[in-house]
């Protein structure tokens, strides 16, 4: 288990050993110093300092409640926040000032957390490397020639660069877990519906989730607890509350399944080696470990890249250049307003996904693509359900390799392949975490721990005892 970073900060703010203003000022300075990595799109300095002063005044009056009192954090720039622009890293939303904040941000602020900036991402979260950002790529903190993973690359890098103790990300098919793995931080994707999606720029409504990236599992668990819960503004938010996360208690003897299809060909030897070493640790600790087959793992990627673009094409329809966002100034007609605004506002990957989505939903192709993909999605869910009847958690690498070089995956299909191990749990709505493994001087590699739907607490507990001390 790793010692948490957040609780000591809260304790220090509460006891007056430090102030929220000092925490925020230092974090802003660290962000400034790490500018080369391009992890952050914009800083919300004024509002952060104002909130910090307010918190310090409260503490001076003896009001010291708040589980995240005075803790600075960074939110992926697809969370709607006050204090600056919300761009989703897209030209389409440059200059957009949110008139309301996302539920996740509101809940963190209610606990005393302070958002100091907005992290870089693939525009509209379309990508696995943060190279698709309209604000330029983020660089990997461990090797500037490599990608940080994506789409929450800026969030993962911000935590890896120790700018903030935690950051917020979104995960639709691996967008928290993959950058966590590539940057060597903890990244947790909760059960679908665990955290309200209200106020987050939608990518794919049926798989979008919100979660923390942090240095330790304990920190991630704390942030999750602060954000989780039913929200009247999101009809898909879960009514059943999150179980208490018993991080410090060692898990009971677990039945662990290692997903066979994720340990076969195409796995980098280094990745295989560190994952297998961790599996050996689990066995040594007295847990039962078996290999389990999720036969449709291979199909999950194909299903994902039908269902998700379909939802993307729909969710991005509102960006029409009329009410907000990028609007072509030289358009002569309504049709031209649409065409020119959307052509210039969206980037190549956005447009690729919109076109795939429209194609798979169009009459004549709907049955062959969208409907069939949903049928297979049901089969994938059933396979996971069957596996969780026998196992408490499932293990796999997060990705077949460690972080790849910038520009290495110019072929979109090669880029999509990076998601092969993370999209299954997304389609099934399962909680899954990326925990950094022991790699010595090598590039970081993450272990994926997947739980049954609703069992977020167990996944976090297992992860806390799996993370390198």
């Amino acid at each position, binding site marked *: 288990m790793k010692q948490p970073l957040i609780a000591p900060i809260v304790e220090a703010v509460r006891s007056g050993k430090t102030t929220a203003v000092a925490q925020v000022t230092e974090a802003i300075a660290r962000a400034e110093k790490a500018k080369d990595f391009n992890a952050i799109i914009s800083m919300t300095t004024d509002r952060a300092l104002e909130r910090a002063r307010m918190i310090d005044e409260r503490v001076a009056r003896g009001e010291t409640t708040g589980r995240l009192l005075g803790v600075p954090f960074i939110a992926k720039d697809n969370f709607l926040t006050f204090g600056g622009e919300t761009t989703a890293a897209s030209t389409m939303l440059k200059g957009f000032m949110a008139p309301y904040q996302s539920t996740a941000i509101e809940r963190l602020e209610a606990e005393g957390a302070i958002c100091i900036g907005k992290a870089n991402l693939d525009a509209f979260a379309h990508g696995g490397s943060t190279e698709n950002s309209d604000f330029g790529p983020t660089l990997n903190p461990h090797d500037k020639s490599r990608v940080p993973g994506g789409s929450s690359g800026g969030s993962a890098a911000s935590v890896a660069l120790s700018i903030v103790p935690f950051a917020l990300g979104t995960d639709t098919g691996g967008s928290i877990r993959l950058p966590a793995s590539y940057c060597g931080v903890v990244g947790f994707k909760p059960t679908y519906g665990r955290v309200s999606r209200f106020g987050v720029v939608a990518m794919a409504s049926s798989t979008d989730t919100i979660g923390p990236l942090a240095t330790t599992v304990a920190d991630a668990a704390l942030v999750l607890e602060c954000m989780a819960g039913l929200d009247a*503004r*999101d*009809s*898909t938010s879960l009514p059943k509350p999150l179980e208490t996360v018993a991080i410090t208690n060692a898990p009971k003897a677990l039945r662990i399944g290692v997903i066979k299809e994720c340990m076969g060909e195409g796995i980098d030897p280094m990745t295989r080696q560190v994952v297998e070493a961790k599996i050996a640790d689990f066995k040594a600790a007295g847990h039962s470990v078996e290999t389990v087959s999720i036969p449709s793992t291979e199909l999950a990627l194909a299903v994902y890249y039908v269902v998700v673009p379909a939802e993307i094409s729909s969710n991005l329809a509102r960006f029409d250049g009329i009410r907000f966002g990028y609007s072509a100034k030289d358009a002569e007609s309504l049709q031209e307003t649409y065409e020119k605004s959307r052509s210039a506002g969206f980037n190549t990957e956005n447009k690729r996904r919109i076109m795939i989505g*429209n194609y798979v939903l169009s009459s004549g192709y709907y049955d062959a693509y969208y409907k069939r993909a949903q049928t297979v999605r049901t089969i994938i869910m059933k396979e996971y359900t069957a596996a969780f009847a026998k196992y408490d958690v499932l293990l796999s690498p997060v990705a077949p390799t460690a972080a790849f070089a910038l520009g290495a995956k110019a072929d979109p299909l090669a880029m999509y392949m990076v998601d092969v191990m993370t999209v299954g749990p997304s389609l099934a709505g399962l909680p899954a975490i990326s925990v950094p493994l022991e790699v010595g001087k090598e590039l970081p590699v993450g272990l994926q721990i997947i739980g049954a739907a609703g069992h977020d607490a167990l996944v976090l507990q297992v992860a806390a005892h799996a993370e390198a001390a």
Partner: protein
Amino acid sequence: MAMIDDYEPTIGIECHVQLATATKLFSGADNDARDAAPNTTVSPICFGLPGVLPVLNTQAVQLAIRAGIALNAEVNLFSAFERKHYFYPDLPLGYQITQLERPVIGAGIVEVPLRDGSTFPVRLHHAHLESDAGKLTHPEGADYSLVDLNRAGTPLIEIVSEPDMHTSEQAKAYAQELYLRMVYAKVTHGNLFHGNMRFDVNISIAKKGATELGTRAEIKNLNSFKSVEKVVEYEFKRQCALLEKGETVVQETRGWNEPKQKTFTQRSKEDAHDYRYFPDADLPPIQLTQEEVDAVAKAMAPALPSSIRQRLLAKSVSAKSIATLFLYPLLLDRVLAVEQLSSDDILKQIIDILINVLPPELEKEATPPLPDSGYLPEPAALVTLIKLVNDSTINGSNAKELLRQSWKDLTDPAAIAEKLGFIQDNDEDALAALVDALLADPIAEQSVNDYKAGNQRAMGFFVGQLMKRSGGKANPALAQKIIKQRLG
């Protein structure tokens, strides 16, 4: 060569009903935008801002259940929302949230009454819940259009009929029957002028007896029963003329030009959208229980047109009067209110005077009856008016005239009667003098002879003359009594 008489139209109607909810279908924004400035009854959801999510209005679901029951249709216990995509400035999300595969209301049969008292069945294919779009206006001469999103997100149910109608009279009667049922189930305010109900008419023609239907045209956005009727008549002639000339009917969407009484091309099939329907993952399915639906049905039963009909028949109100009342829901509404506070005799008198006086007045109004207009007489005022007749303060024909003149403001019938000089003269001696004068007048001679010969109709002449001579103030019953005495 074929004649127009050889053809028969086949008509199906889609009817959009705006639900009378307090807030919109998926947001907390006010659903009543009648007097609101443009874009004031909107929320971030109506505006389609990033990050907003729809949250289903449960009141809309309750009204949909009521609609299903009132339509004599299946209420589906499981239904779900889908997105229908197209780009237009009045559609902020770029898609309409609607129901396609699993609508909340399934098949049903509506028995539609015709003027002659007979009925005919129209099968319903289904009815679904959906959100309305905003409104676009194109200012004269401007190089821009204006978008008003007040209506965006208003809950609608769309009632889709099978093509079971074959005359303009049937089409109009069906539209009226839907109106009646939706208003009486309190599903909608039913204000046609404000577009609370809008009709799309699908019409094709074929030779009588043909097994295959012709190519149809859809005439969209009609907001009066009369226009439904006129559209069917116009389209029937237009399509017949095309076929007679050896041309074909084009499958297309047409509009209705009210001033010119003509339909016109709006969009041909080639321009039809591919709506790319698919399930809306932001909204969980609607799940109802049979108990819930049964409870609504039970509570609604007394207000359903069929039970009202039975109740009034039991009070010996004539079937013809009831049929007339149903054609004017506003009047029926008043009658039902009166039912609560008066005897059956007074109720019947009120029904008689209302259906005698008001239908022609309502027909004169620019738009069809407005149930929420509030300017119809209060039930208590109607009871007072009838009591003035029953206690001989005014006579029956003056009561009618009084209602005709003051139906929009009948707060104090007695004062109005006074003002109009309708207070009856119940002085028997004065009236007797008038009777004697009349009977002595040569113009009465023929009628006196007729009466004496047993012709009762002559009495009408005498009373009419006396009313005239008394300036309408004579008490007709008293006059009859005196005449009978005089003529023995």
